[in-house]
């Protein structure tokens, strides 16, 4: 990984108006607790997911269409390093958002009602796992779609898979193998089944973690494969 690319992505993202706006928004969420309005940590994570949908798109597509990617790819850095550095830069941005907001949230909760720290840690891990997957999925689409085509493709992809899942679950009774196959593929790609807290409870932690890892690698390595195998010339923008 190249630290200069990571730092560049990170500083660029945290200075963006959308990040600052969300940061202020999260602060507002926390302050309202002092007026005895109950806010669950889930709301903070929902905010983080929403921010990810604004921060990640165009991670590669924008650089490819503007041509700046050529400045990176002609440097003495492996292309895989360029790819992972950019993804990690976005991840770091989201991590910083989560850490700061969760800290403020925990502090305010503690002041108000003495919230247990372990609950927050589980929420934090759950949030990070989901954010990481979300970033890897949008990055995957960004390697071959221009500008913000990645976020459009991601939303269509998610809606399409959810739709197919619901149809197969509700209407498709037989053959059973087909129904199960469709559902397995969709569960694998979208990870709809469980949250991290559920992994801990159902006694199948390793299996759940393995599935998550496979899903993450599928998108990360798939994106890397496309990133490395495509052309970066004028006709390709």
């Amino acid at each position, binding site marked *: 990984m190249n630290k200069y690319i990571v730092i560049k992505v990170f500083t660029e993202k945290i200075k963006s108006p959308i990040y600052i706006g969300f940061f202020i928004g999260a602060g507002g969420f926390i302050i309202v607790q002092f007026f005895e309005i109950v806010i669950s940590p889930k709301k903070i994570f929902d905010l983080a997911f929403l921010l990810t949908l604004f921060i990640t798109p165009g991670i590669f597509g924008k650089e490819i269409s503007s041509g700046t990617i050529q400045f990176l*790819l002609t440097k003495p850095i492996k292309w895989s390093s360029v790819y992972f550095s950019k993804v990690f830069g976005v991840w770091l941005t989201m991590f910083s958002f989560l850490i700061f907001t969760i800290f403020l949230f925990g502090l305010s909760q503690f002041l108000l009602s003495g919230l247990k720290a372990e609950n927050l840690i589980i929420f934090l891990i759950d949030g990070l796992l989901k954010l990481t997957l979300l970033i890897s999925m949008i990055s995957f689409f960004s390697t071959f779609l221009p500008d913000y085509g990645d976020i459009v493709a991601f939303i269509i992809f998610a809606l399409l898979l959810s739709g197919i899942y619901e149809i197969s679950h509700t209407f498709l009774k037989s053959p059973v193998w087909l129904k199960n196959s469709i559902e397995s593929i969709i569960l694998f790609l979208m990870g709809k089944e469980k949250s991290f807290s559920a992994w801990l409870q159902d006694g199948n932690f390793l299996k759940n973690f393995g599935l998550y890892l496979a899903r993450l690698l599928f998108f990360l390595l798939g994106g890397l494969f496309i990133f490395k195998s495509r052309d970066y010339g004028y006709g390709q923008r």
Partner: protein
Amino acid sequence: MSNLQQNIISIKNLFKSFGNLFSRKLVLKNINLDILKGEVFGLIGPNGAGKTTLMGCMLGLLKIDSGEILINGRSPLNIEIKRNIGYLPERIGFYKTMTGKEFLIFQGKLFGLPNPVLKKRVDALLRELELKDVANCKIRIYSRGMLQRLSWAQALIHNPDILFLDEPAAGMDPSGIIRVRNLILQLKKEGKTIFLNSHKLSEVEKVCDRIAFIDKGEIIHIETLRRDHLIYKIEYSETKKEFITLDMPLIHGLEIYQINNSFIKIKVENERALFSFLKHLLNKGVKITEVIKEKVDIEKFFLD
């Protein structure tokens, strides 16, 4: 030319196409080129001829269908090779939220330059390319000429031995074009190998040692530009062109460039070669009507 003999870039049987599984368009056809160390090599041709595509392949930005590109005997994607390459792209995209100075520092760091060296290089380039006054301004306010100069600065930040310049004077005013020309000549003096694409024939002529003409993806001619070469048009009364060259002695430094039944154009290294050729014509009984000295004109080469 004694120090120019080492081959630094070698392209063999290169083919490149664009498209998908069902329809592909061949844009580079059987390209073979050898570029020597320390030479300025120009690639000229009309728009869409494949100049930028060829440069993209040489930089590893475009995947080739078949053939081989070697820079110093290695792939263009080799990290050590890239360390020695500077690239000035034709279409300039920048990180517009950065300042010019920040951009150059970022580029230098990607090349792994240590901080003290980087600081000196950045200051020197900003001064040389007259960007000092706008160094701390955001790139988004830069004019086209300033962007071109900034692009030059990033290409030179690590003092590379090999430079790929895609339309190096694009968007520049006349004084900018002269500055670029002088910069290329200065880099040549420093022993850099330069590969440049341009459609400005007059500019290429002034700085290049050799030029390749590319059209429809094919190299159609490679010409060595010797500024000390002379071209003469010798007109004679109607004589069969085959008769002119029949039994012609070997004359050192002479090249026939165009011939027909009423005139011949020759390129000579010195006037001794011209006199030897005229003697040959007179011995054959050819009636010479006029000998005209012509200017070496790259545009004529191109049109011919």
